[in-house]
């Protein structure tokens, strides 16, 4: 899976593209582990280019969050499409992840006091 990354101040934005499934799950996890190793703990995952997420893909998102939370960081999410959002809500991932309507709001959320 192709994952574009961009550093905006203290925040790293990852943009996975296409199908987030069993195969892509590992790419995303590895990418996030790399970020953690480079000291990038504030991540935004831009889901606007993700067409579909299956159960393994959902698992990988939570695995990524675990990795980053261990380092005291967080993953914020932006741009989930309707079909993906329905699945997020079914398995209550919107209670685990903070989801934003714009990439700038997601990035700015890391500047909020206490975060």
């Amino acid at each position: 899976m192709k994952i574009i990354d961009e550093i905006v101040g203290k925040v790293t934005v990852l943009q996975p593209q296409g199908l987030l499934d069993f195969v892509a799950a590992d790419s995303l996890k590895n990418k996030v582990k790399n970020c953690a190793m480079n000291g990038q703990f504030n991540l935004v995952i831009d889901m606007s280019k993700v067409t579909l997420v299956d159960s393994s893909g959902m698992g990988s998102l939570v695995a990524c969050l675990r990795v980053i939370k261990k380092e005291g960081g967080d993953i914020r999410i932006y741009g989930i499409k309707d079909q993906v959002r329905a699945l997020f809500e079914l398995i209550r991932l919107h209670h685990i992840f903070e989801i934003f309507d714009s990439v700038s709001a997601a990035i700015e959320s890391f500047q909020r006091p206490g975060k």
Partner: protein
Amino acid sequence: MRILVVDDDKDMRLLIRSTLTGMGYEVLLASDGIEALSVLEREKIQLVISDWLMPKMDGLELCKRIRSSSFPGYVYVIILTAKDSKGELTTAMEAGADDYIAKPFDKNELGVRILAGERILRLEMDLEDRNERLSKALSLLQKDLEAAARIQKDLLPKANINSCGFLFDWIFLPCSFVAGDTFNYMKVDNDHICFFLLDVSGHGVQAAMLSFMLTKTLSSLILSGGFGAGLQSHLLSPVETVLELNRRFQADDEIMQYFTMIYGVMNIRDGRISLVQAGQPSPVYLRKGGEPVLIGSGGFPVGLNPNATFEELNLCLEPGERIILYSDGITDCTNQDGQAFSTERLVDLLQKGEGSSLRSLIERVEKNLREWRGSDEWEDDISLFAIERSIT
């Protein structure tokens, strides 16, 4: 190695034979293409050295025939020719020759060309050997998987069975041999039946292993809770049961395998059901003479979140009413245009089956799903588990 020498010139045949015999090869002779083919059919030959121009069937035609035949191993062909132009050589190669030697030939050159041929033949034999071992391994794996699939199916309840005033029926279509989906029900005491349908993330063997284990754990959890001290019922509530599973099966960070499930307890005397929806699609409650109701709006899956809490949902199954549990393999099942079957289509289909028997409803859903998919290959495991309270 056995070499067949094909030449209409007897002196040439004998000359080549004596050269090759001197090199330690076993040599057979033929005087034209037709004779050569009949030798090839009788004998195991690995390498052919053939003259180009011969009566009856020339070297090129012989090459073509060899390539279109199905001799057991690869036959390496060297064409002997007085022609030495590029165009002629291309023609020979196109006909299927592997190499050529210009006449008059040098003994050493002939030896080297044959050695090159031997190298190719050895590679070819290695490959064939590896292929054979691979296909043996594959067929063993396949047999193992078929056996596992049978065991998994045997663990499911009997289809269309009537028990304690309730009818149970189901659909189960794994997308590979074995599935991460499973379901079952169990009578735990005189008053209660527990039931579940679960869907392990991913599919195939990895998911099936966890689903086997979960079935076993769930059974012992239900039964040990059901008959505590003094045969007093200590049946765990659905929330307690799912919390316990969530405690025991937290996903490992690397593998990140979790599952979604519906777990319910039903009172068989009055049809009251309490259930937990742990990330599983909402069950469809088919009321008598009313609109179908989707029960619940979601919930945490089991194993993803150690602090997950679960909510109990309640309903009462009146005589003649049904509740349908299913995996997202059904609602997400895409047709040739990539369109999903959808919850709406499933609910509509279930509603239309109100007057018919549970069996014919189940058959209709399966038939519709197969037609929708247009193939026997599923992207995800398909399962549906239905309960109907009989009219007494």
